[in-house]
């Protein structure tokens, strides 16, 4: 990535943060008058400049189909799992033992690991209690998880979250690693045309075609 492109991307990211902050500001004031927007810009700029945080590294791509799919899947799961956990609390038999399992993630991006952890924490029945950041392993505690079948269910759920998130906003490298992992698990790889390997292959083919001509 060239220096200019990097600078442009960081500018885009800063503008994105500021936009989010301004929207929160407008929502707090309950109006979108000129004064509120101007003061919002000032406050957002001050916050972004004064409270410097390590930058969130976006991959620079969004797939709206998978993003929508992720949000719908997430809402459906929260609904179903809430009812399930509520039933566990009131049924006569007490809950079984839980389990802590290590789930290998394909991504190394801090943002995606955070999002996977948070989504996992929002869906009832699973909770990440420890993260090995260097190896991208999350340790998920599953509620009422006392046989291998239940265990695999929680593991599959975590993988499902990760898959949707990577296809929605992950980097091409993440997609490639994920597709390899999916092949190993016997699932179909998706978005193959975005991966680095595929792009390199296409570039090579184009070059050969040009050489032949």
């Amino acid at each position, binding site marked *: 990535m060239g220096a200019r492109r990097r600078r442009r991307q960081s500018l885009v990211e800063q503008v994105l943060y500021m936009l989010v902050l301004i929207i929160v500001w407008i929502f707090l004031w309950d109006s979108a008058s000129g004064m509120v927007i101007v003061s919002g810009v000032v406050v957002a700029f001050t916050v972004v400049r004064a409270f410097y945080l390590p930058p969130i590294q976006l991959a620079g791509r969004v797939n709206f189909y998978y993003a929508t799919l992720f949000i719908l899947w997430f809402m459906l799961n929260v609904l179903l799992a809430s009812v399930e956990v*509520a039933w566990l609390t009131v049924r006569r038999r*007490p809950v079984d033992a839980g389990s802590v399992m290590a789930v290998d993630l394909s991504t190394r991006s801090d943002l995606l690991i955070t999002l996977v952890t948070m989504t*996992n924490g929002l869906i*009832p029945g699973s909770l990440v*209690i*420890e993260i090995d950041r260097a190896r991208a392993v999350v340790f998920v505690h599953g509620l009422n998880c006392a046989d291998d079948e239940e265990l695999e269910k929680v593991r599959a759920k975590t993988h499902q979250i990760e898959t949707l998130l990577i296809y929605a906003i992950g980097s091409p490298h993440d997609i490639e690693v994920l597709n390899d992992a999916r092949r190993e698990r016997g699932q179909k790889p998706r978005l193959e045309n975005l991966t680095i390997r595929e792009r390199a292959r296409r570039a090579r083919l184009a070059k050969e075609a040009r050489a032949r001509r």
Partner: protein
Amino acid sequence: MILDIVSTVFIAGAALLSLAAGIGSLRFPDLLSRMHASSKPQLFGLVMVMFAVGLQIRHWGPVSTMFIIVFFQLFTVPVAAHMIGRAGYRTKHLRRSMLYRDELDDAVARAHAREVAERERRELAEKDRDTDSAGPASGSASGEDRTANDHDESDTGR
């Protein structure tokens, strides 16, 4: 009329979910299971109450504030649950009998073994350097108890 019914259903559902959260925090047997009960049904209940109130008020002002409430709840609740669960695990406030399988314990044991091996290798190298002073019993670290600090090893990477 229909809006009233929908709001009522949502508020009743939210109340039931919050009740379940309360009962769960009482009835569940260990810390990690309780974390499930106390954070999530409650959050979903809150979202439902907000939705019902929004249906009743239908003014932009309160609705936008409720958006912010839900937004920040979505971001903070899982972090809080994660931190409490993590602290509970690290300080060993957990009932082993309530864990069917614990792969984190295996990982911690592996990290600990790696650390001990590393330390022993370093000590051996030091001993080789000054072979004259062959001190007895260089204190093999394998007898040491694992402390909570050992967990730190795994996430110091990068």
